[in-house]
Each structure stands twice: as structure tokens, then as C-alpha cells.
């Protein structure tokens, strides 16, 4: 069994490489030099695997300058695992046996590869990462940091769940401004006087094409503007995987998930506290007999009251959305609503919830998911707003209704589709996710190299671009592989 590796994302590549079955071309440096597989801080006493032909590296390891430099090289990168002593029983000279160096966050492998041919690594100036957000097309191809003030909000919405693995490589998460990002920004900037009924979009593409990241970028744009109210629904799997309480509501004639609705409204309240504080209700609401919220109360207070109990959240969820719509209709108001729905695919197939006859419930049988589809179809809308949805490849499921609605497949008489979902989604405007251009690949590669996450030179971005086909996730995996 191979020892645990630093990058789990690349473990497959490395294992395939060690077994000699890598589908990627080997770099000549790796072929010609001994390397070791790193281990984490486990105290396992197994020997290290050695591979390939080698030439002695004694001089480089015992070189004090090399030792001094090795710590500096990794100063910007993530803390790596500590190197360990090798148990050498092969042809290597015992005196010069490789000793693990405890650099601050370095490893022997990286030091060897970087310092081959007695070349000193020139520290490149860090690529200009924009601290201030630029929404214009001129910023295309540039990397920008997510402001710390927005990280908390995105975390509350659950937008960073899927990206935790790739963001863990960096101290601050950084995003690339792509062409599709410019498209989204243009849509949002034009939506100042456009109803959400005519601003319904779905991001569709292959696995790892960057749909969730693009939604994240749209949310960052909205949070950066004070007049936006963001309704974010990420992690839609929790709405269909039978992991939260549900019951049938006779008054609504549909199934409700009180806890999830309360959670959604709570996240909206926490994330849009300032914007909701400036909006007021147009009518009064009686929460419980004897207690009512008068007209003119701010929406933040309304949300605070209705999220105190899950039953109230269910009863007044649609009222809140209607009040939000009413707020956007007011003549002096400049409020915009951005409704983001990630993983629409999982909302288009039968859920794991069961009815009393032990049959799987359909998504439209649920009260809240039905409301979502009404907004997606345009039957419900915000006077000033935009709706962005995104398909997802996780979990891997067949979505015949959505495929036919988005034009990816033809209507097959032998494959039944859900008519309600088809009718709701057929009028969505599809934004296809394009692969990275070569310039975008170069930008990402530069950032990865300067962050010491990628071991290769920037010039190999073309090779990685070809190997990955421009797919962002594959490109990242290709760049961060250790072999």
C-alpha cells in the first residue's frame, strides 16, 4: 500500500505514475532523478519506496545553501508534511544517505526537483492579485482575491462547501476573472430595471467547468453592491436526500420541510442584514393569535420573528418573498434581488423522501421547491432581479427532464420526463461554460507557481492546457500533481 500523499487530488495520478501507468508524459527531470514519496507526520516505520533510475544527490542534500534556501521557497505555500529519514538498503552511499530536513513547510522531494542542475530558483515577484474588485472586461484573465469581509457571508450561504478542497491549497482564496464572469457581471449590471422573469439563466457545462465558481463570482458582485439582496441556495442535495424532517401540510396541499426552510431564511437574514434593514413591509402579518407585525416593519425584523419557529418560517416564507418583490417595485427603491440556485440537477429527479404509500416524492411535491420552480419558470418574479441557476455533475445522476428542457437531449418517447420540471425550465436562457483559453491557463499557472503549489515552470501551461482540455478542475489537478 502506498503511503499517504500530500495532495489527495493528485493521489491517483501519483499512484498511476508510480505503477508506471500514468497517462501523462513524464518530465525529463523526474525520469533522471531519484525521488521519494512524501509521508505525512505519521510515525509509520515502513520504508520509503524508491523509483526509477537515479544519480546521487548527496551534494545537493548536504549543501548548506541548499538547506537554507529550501525553507524560503515554501514560505508562501501551504504547510507541507515533514520529510522523514529514509531506510536505505540499496545502492546509495550510506554516509550520504538522504536525511529528512525539517524546513518550515518543505520537503525533500520539492527541494530536489527545484534545485536540479545546481540552478538557484529565482523568486518571481508575486503575480498581481487584485485586491480591489474590477467588474470590467479589462480584468479578464486576471486573478482576484475574495475580500475577507465577504468570506463569512459566502460561508453562511454554503457557497464555499464545494470549493474547500481546492481553496485549502492557498492562504486566501483567489478566483480567475473569465469571459463567463464578464457575462454574468454584464447581466447583473443590466438588471437594474429588468424583472427576474426576463432574467432567468442557467449555467450548464461539463464536470469541473466552473459553474459553482461562477455563481460564487456573481454573489461576490452582488455583495459588493449595497443595494443587492442575495438569496443563495447551495447544497440542494439536502433538500432531496431525506435527511431532514418533512410532513404533509393540508393547508398548503404539499409537503414541507420546516427545518430547511428556516435554515434558508436564517441564512438570508444573516447575509443581507443591512439591505433588509432598509426595506419595510407593506402590510401587517399575524404570526400567532394576539401577536402581529405591523406594516412598515423592516424586513430584517420580520425575518427574525418568522425564523424563531420553523412553523412560522413555512407559513410566512412566501409572504417574505412577496414583500421583497413589493420592495423592489417601490418608485424610489434601487433594490435588486439575486437568486442563486446551485445544483439544479438534483432538484429535477425524484427525491428520497417517501409518501404514506412508500412511493418516492417528486421535487414539485414540496412546497419550497415548487416555489423555486415557479421563480425559474417566471410565473413568480421580482420586479428588479436576476435568477442564476447551475446544473451539477455531483452526484452523478440522470436528469432526462432537465436535459430535454435545456436542449441537450431530444424528447424520447421511451424515457419519461417530468412535465412540470420540463415546462418550468424550458424557457431558461442557457449560459454554456467554456473551457479555459490559453491566456486564462497562463494566469492560473502563474498564480499556482508563485504560490508554490505547482512544481513546474510557467512555460508548461500550454502542455497542461492541452492535457486537461481546458477544463478548470482537470487543469488544476494537472498543475498540482507531484510527478
Amino acid at each position, binding site marked *: 500500500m502506498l503511503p499517504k500523499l500530500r495532495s489527495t487530488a493528485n493521489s491517483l495520478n501519483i499512484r498511476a505514475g508510480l505503477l508506471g501507468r500514468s497517462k501523462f508524459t513524464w518530465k525529463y527531470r523526474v525520469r533522471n532523478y531519484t525521488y521519494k514519496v512524501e509521508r505525512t507526520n505519521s510515525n509509520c516505520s515502513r520504508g520509503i519506496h524508491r523509483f526509477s533510475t537515479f544519480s546521487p544527490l548527496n551534494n545537493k542534500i548536504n549543501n548548506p545553501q541548499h538547506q537554507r534556501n529550501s525553507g524560503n521557497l515554501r514560505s508562501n505555500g501551504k504547510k507541507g508534511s515533514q520529510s522523514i529519514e529514509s531506510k536505505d538498503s540499496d545502492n546509495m552511499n550510506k554516509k550520504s544517505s538522504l536525511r529528512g530536513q525539517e524546513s518550515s513547510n518543505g520537503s525533500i522531494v520539492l527541494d530536489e526537483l527545484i534545485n536540479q542542475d545546481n540552478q538557484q530558483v529565482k523568486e518571481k515577484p508575486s503575480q498581481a492579485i487584485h485586491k480591489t474588485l474590477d467588474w470590467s472586461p479589462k480584468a479578464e484573465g486576471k486573478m482576484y482575491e475574495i475580500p475577507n469581509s465577504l468570506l463569512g457571508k459566502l460561508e453562511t450561504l454554503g457557497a464555499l462547501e464545494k470549493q474547500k478542497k481546492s481553496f485549502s491549497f492557498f492562504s486566501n482564496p483567489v478566483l480567475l476573472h473569465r469571459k463567463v464572469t464578464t457575462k454574468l457581471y454584464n447581466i447583473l449590471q443590466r438588471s437594474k430595471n429588468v424583472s427576474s422573469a426576463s432574467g432567468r439563466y442557467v449555467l450548464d457545462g461539463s464536470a469541473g467547468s466552473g459553474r459553482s465558481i461562477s455563481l460564487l463570482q456573481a454573489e461576490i458582485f452582488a455583495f459588493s453592491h449595497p443595494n443587492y439582496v442575495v438569496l443563495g441556495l447551495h447544497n440542494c442535495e439536502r433538500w432531496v436526500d431525506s*435527511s431532514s*424532517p418533512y410532513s404533509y401540510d393540508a393547508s398548503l396541499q404539499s409537503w414541507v420541510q420546516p427545518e430547511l426552510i428556516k435554515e434558508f431564511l436564517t441564512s438570508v437574514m444573516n447575509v443581507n442584514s443591512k439591505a433588509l434593514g432598509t426595506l419595510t413591509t407593506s402590510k401587517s402579518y399575524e404570526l400567532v393569535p394576539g401577536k402581529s407585525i405591523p406594516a412598515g416593519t423592516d424586513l430584517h425584523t420580520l425575518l427574525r420573528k418568522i425564523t424563531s419557529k420553523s412553523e412560522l418560517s413555512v407559513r410566512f416564507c412566501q409572504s417574505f418573498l412577496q414583500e421583497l418583490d413589493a420592495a423592489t417595485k417601490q418608485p424610489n427603491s434601487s433594490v435588486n434581488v439575486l437568486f442563486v440556485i446551485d445544483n439544479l440537477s438534483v432538484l429535477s429527479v425524484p427525491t428520497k423522501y417517501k409518501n404514506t404509500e412508500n412511493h418516492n416524492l417528486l421535487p414539485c411535491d414540496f412546497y419550497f421547491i415548487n416555489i423555486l420552480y415557479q421563480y425559474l419558470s417566471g410565473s413568480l418574479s421580482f420586479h428588479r432581479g436576476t435568477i442564476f441557476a447551475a446544473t451539477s455533475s455531483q452526484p452523478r445522476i440522470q436528469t432526462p427532464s432537465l436535459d430535454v428542457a435545456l436542449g441537450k437531449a431530444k424528447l424520447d418517447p421511451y424515457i419519461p420526463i417530468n412535465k412540470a420540471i420540463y415546462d418550468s425550465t424550458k424557457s431558461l436562457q442557457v449560459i454554456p461554460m467554456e473551457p479555459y483559453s490559453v491566456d486564462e491557463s497562463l494566469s492560473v499557472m502563474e498564480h499556482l507557481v508563485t504560490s508554490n503549489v505547482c512544481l513546474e515552470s510557467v512555460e508548461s501551461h500550454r502542455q497542461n492546457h492541452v492535457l486537461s482540455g481546458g477544463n478548470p478542475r482537470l487543469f488544476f489537478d494537472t498543475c498540482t500533481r507531484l510527478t
Partner: protein
Amino acid sequence: MVYILGVPIKDERPVKYALLGFYGIGRAVAENICAKLSFHDTLKVKDLSDSQQTGLSQLLSNMTIEGDLKRQRDANISRYYNIRSYRGLRHAAGLPVNGQNTRTNAKTSKKLNRLQRRSYSTSSIGTLGWNRVLPTAVSILQKIKHIR
């Protein structure tokens, strides 16, 4: 530990799997019960509200499980024996009922088939079988009474 109809159920188990602890409830029946009562898959026994527990107890009390089911099974076997049918005689003899080989194997049937069918048990009474012990005990007591 929660007791439903006298059967102890661990708190940490999901209800769907905790119901398997009842004699007469398998996976399909447990799923049906959870669907009828609108219990989601990850609902644990300790998270059941009072109304949910009451509903579950009511539903289970209307089903034939545990002792009722065992008595029903034993009554069926006794009926077969009383009408002297082939199946009844095989039960009484402790031999396979459904046409299996007896030249070899048939170990399970020989262990379990009785007029009052026993389950897998390591108790001494279980090994002897009530249908052998009880008549003998009764006859001994009668003799003692007669002597007195």
C-alpha cells in the same frame, strides 16, 4: 434506551434500522412504517417527539409482531399436527418439512423443528425441547401426588 411495546431500542440508531429489532419486522416493513409516519431516513430514536412515539406505538400495536406472531406460528404448526398432516408429523419428528434431503444435511431442521418451534438458543431447556421436558415433568408430578 427507549422501550416500545416492551422491546428495548437503542437511542442512537436511526428509526428505520431500530425497528428491525422487533420480531416480525424486516427492512421492507420498517421502510413502510417510516413512510406511513413520514419519518426521514436519518431520524434517530432519541429525536422522536412524543406524538411520533405515540403514533409509532399505535401502529406497531395494530401489527402482529413479537409474541403474537410467535403464538400464531406455533398455532399453525399445532394445527398441522392435530389434523395429522404430513407437515405436522415432520414438525413433530423434528425433520425437514419442505422436501429437503435427510440422508445428509438437515441439521437446521433437526435443531429447530418442533411442535413448538424454537429459535436459535443456547439454553438447556431449549436444547431438550419443551415438548419433551413438559410431559415428563407432568408425569413425575402426578406420580408423586399419587404416592402421597
